[in-house]
């Protein structure tokens, strides 16, 4: 096969140069969905009742303040059992699981999380009646300019 013929075949087969999105191994929205499914099983997850607060722009992905809360009377009969937090493109989808009791008073937690890059964070609230609710937030993560060299 002469050179011109080879190029024509290759071009026809592949079309123009394809752009492949490269993600770190294991970090996909699909893996996050799998992790969420492990928690909720076959139950439906309804957006609402959960409030996930994250800054829209973070100066450094090493420590992003996160607050998650769920409106609930927090009584024996009606309370939040747990809140699970997931990320879309961190190396591992799970961030934390917070487990409440009626003695918590309020289903509200604040912490600081690591975000590998600009991405969406999802919080799933699990209520005492077995229902699941969710909220999501997107954070733009900027990188530091002057980085560490050898110490």
């Amino acid at each position, binding site marked *: 096969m002469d050179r011109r013929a080879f190029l024509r075949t290759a071009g026809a087969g592949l079309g123009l140069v394809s752009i492949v999105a490269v993600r770190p191994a294991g970090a996909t929205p699909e893996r996050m969905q799998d992790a969420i499914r492990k928690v909720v099983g076959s139950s439906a997850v309804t957006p609402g009742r959960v409030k996930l607060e994250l800054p829209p722009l973070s100066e450094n992905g*090493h*420590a*992003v303040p996160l607050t998650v809360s769920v409106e609930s009377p927090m009584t024996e009969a009606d309370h939040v059992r747990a809140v699970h937090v997931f*990320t879309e493109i*961190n*190396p*591992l989808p*799970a*961030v*934390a*699981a*917070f*487990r*409440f*009791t009626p*003695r*918590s*008073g*309020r289903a*509200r*937690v*604040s*912490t*600081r*999380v*690591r*975000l590998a890059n600009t991405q969406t964070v999802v919080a799933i609230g699990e209520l005492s009646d077995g229902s699941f609710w969710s909220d999501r937030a997107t954070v733009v993560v900027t990188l530091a300019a002057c980085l560490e060299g050898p110490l």
Partner: protein
Amino acid sequence: MARALINVPAQAKRGEIIEIKTLISHVMETGHRRTETGAPIARDIIRQFVCTYNGAEVFRAELHPAIAANPFLVFSTVATESGTLTFTWTGDNAFSVTESAAITVS
């Protein structure tokens, strides 16, 4: 450096919801990093935090590597009676730290 900073009100009214802030020094090594020569750095994180109030569990957190170094947790509990709040952090490499704070409820 196993040092923890805990902020709990010393006094509260019965039935009041009090906010508790905890900060503990821990590197929270993710297990994803590598040395300059490419060798993996093993995961070393706090995996669990439990708060008990006179022995009864009131709040628990399961932590993964995505929790930032020197984990900071703010949560609440209902001031039911005077006594002791105990905070326990456990994790990889047999990490275990327990701190307590007294509370007077009137």
